[in-house]
């Protein structure tokens, strides 16, 4: 936090609304760069970004958390990218959101059991134990992950790595990558509105 004060105002994170954007994209070189480039053009800060394969080969799913009050235009402009198949702002939709964190916690023989019992409360797993540290893996909703980190912070966090948020819309709504593959027989004119 001390460091944060040295950064110019334009680089500091602000109190803008956080939006969760989910996108399906073709798995081609450069697609992530194009996607992120459009967000950068507007000067929006990306809080987290998770990319991986979807249920369909050659289509990837991106979950992006971005701070801005004006994402609607960006979402529309993301469609201009040739390799972007579907984009949704799911911030206000019912979703399941998850994040995973690995934390290397300072531990001594006396604090070890406290950490383990705390981890159990959060359904976190101890995945490595060393002489003066242990690594705990925790998965949960982003708020719960925050909670967990706050609780274990007093023990001393040596290293932390978060995957960034992934999100999926509940129920039948949402978007399956397979729908877009079947329709992909070249250039088809299709009403959007």
């Amino acid at each position, binding site marked *: 936090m001390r460091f944060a004060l040295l950064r110019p105002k334009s680089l500091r994170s602000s109190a803008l609304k956080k939006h969760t954007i989910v996108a399906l*994209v*073709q798995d081609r*070189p*450069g697609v992530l*760069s*194009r996607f992120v*480039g459009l967000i950068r*053009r507007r000067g929006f800060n990306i809080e987290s970004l998770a990319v991986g394969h979807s249920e369909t080969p050659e*289509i990837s799913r991106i979950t992006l958390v971005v701070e801005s009050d004006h994402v609607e*235009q960006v979402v*529309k*402009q993301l*469609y*201009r*990218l*040739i*390799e*972007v*198949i*579907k984009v949704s702002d799911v911030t206000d939709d019912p979703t399941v959101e998850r994040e995973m964190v690995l934390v290397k916690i300072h531990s001594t023989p006396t604090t070890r059991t406290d950490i383990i019992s705390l981890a159990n409360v959060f359904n976190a797993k101890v995945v490595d134990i060393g002489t003066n540290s242990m690594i705990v893996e925790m998965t949960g909703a982003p708020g719960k992950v925050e909670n967990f980190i706050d609780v274990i912070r007093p023990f001393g966090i040596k290293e932390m790595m978060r995957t960034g948020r992934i999100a999926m819309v509940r129920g039948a709504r949402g978007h399956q990558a397979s729908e*877009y*593959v079947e*329709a*992909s*027989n*070249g*250039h*088809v*004119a*299709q*009403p*959007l*509105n």
Partner: protein
Amino acid sequence: MSEQRTGAQIMCEALIREGVEVMFGVPGGAIMPFYYAMWEYRDKLRHVLCRHEQGGGHAAEGYARSTGKIGVCIGTSGPGTTNLVTPLADAMMDSTPLLAITGQVFSHLLGKDAFQETDIVGITMPVTKHNYLVKNVEDLPYVFKEAIHIATTGRPGPVLIDITKDAMIAKTVPNWDVKLHLPGYKPTYTGNRRQIREAAEMLINAKKPLIISGNGVIMSEAAPELREFAEQLSIPVVTTLHGIGSFPEDHPLSIGMPGMHGWVHVNKAIQECDVLFNIGARFDDRVTGKVSTFAPNAKVIHVDIDPSEIGKNVKVQVPIVGDAKQVLQALLEELPSAQELSELHSRMGSWISHIREMQSKHQTRQQYFKRDENVVLPPADVYAALSKTMNERGNYRVVTDVGQHQMWAAQLLDYYRPRTHITSGGAGTMGFAVPAAMGVAIAHPEDTVWAICGDGGFQMTNQEMATIIQEGIKNIKIAVINNGYLGMVRQWQELFENKRYSGTPLSGPNFAKLAEAYYWKGITVERPEDVQAAIDEAYATDGPVLIDFRVEREVNVWPMVPQGASIGDAITDVSEL
């Protein structure tokens, strides 16, 4: 067809298959294999050697904008490609189908700071519709097909293909039987029927409707449909800078250009109208002025093929995503009965005469014909003579650069057909006119192509005059509106910065002598009485001619809506500031 081909031969054949006939480029190390192969195909694929890659890019833009076909430009790796960035950005802003083919270092050298290596795909991502790095010869047939498809369909735009030298040298049996796979790219051409009906109803019931016609109408070849639609409903038509030519300017329903240097009556009509039908224009800030006060009484219908344009700048009541031609055709099917139409026509009569009344009150061109006793050569005299001669001789196309002369050319010359007014609008690229005019002249050898430039922009790319001679192009005439300033910036300095002429006074060579040095005919005009003779001489000369019009130095473009002001508040004279 099952013979082995080098990558470079495949590139040539791919271009020929897509109907490409002309390419504008400059060779260099990494692109040499393509030039080696090009020699075999020179009967079908004309190469125009430009003096600078930027010139090649703008020439390809001029070719594309005047024909609707894809323009092709070529550069080698490193600086050869970075010089293409400006034309690519220009083509992106003005939705021009452009294909840039660039050589890249050998794939094993990528990322090693090899000689003339630049990450051009990374550099051009924000200024292209799409781009590619090709490292395998097998990918070439597919990539060329997809690239040209993307550049020319939907909202057209520039596409760059960067090809490593080894991919051009390697051989394979090309597989032309490729099927495009673009699940994320399905442009919408047909407008939604329900919204089209709603739009038709709104326009039929409007009391003061207005059409704004933009580049989209020209690109989708929708000018005949626009004319029929406007005539059927008797709606006045405003043409944006890029919409010029989409509607004949001598038509009784044509009222002129809107925006920062639009006519007062046009802007006033926009502010008064109750339904604003925008077809194929993007509500650029130079058109809208202060957005919050733009068309305050209007319900807005916006037709655009790019969904991200709708609602971007101006709030829209009826959005229609689709191709201008198809939407207009659909709208024409929604017209009411002949009786209703004739009632509508009589209703429109008062609206149109109201606009014409405003027009006569705010005399459009009058401002330019005021003259002091000691005036040397008013720029308006040049335009008046050009306009008269062009109208008499016909078959002309005008290519303009960026600045005061550009606005004068939009205001003071007449345009009747699409693709006869070509300019750099969105990007405002100085140096556009000379090379772009070359592209237009190559595409239209039967027309006289006038490149109208300022002395500032002319000096940015005038080296293409050598290319024009080498290619034997004769149907090109350059008019330099030479006022010894970067005039538009000077105008702003005069009006808003207390006449602090910082960095705007500009010297140049003797342009006529420069033209002679390039083996052109060069003419200098300093007096009003010599203007017409010079233009006549340019027409009489069988070859390229440059006329250096040394005009009065400090003349402004009027009217002007100051930046950030409402378009209803145009000023028409310095005294109004």
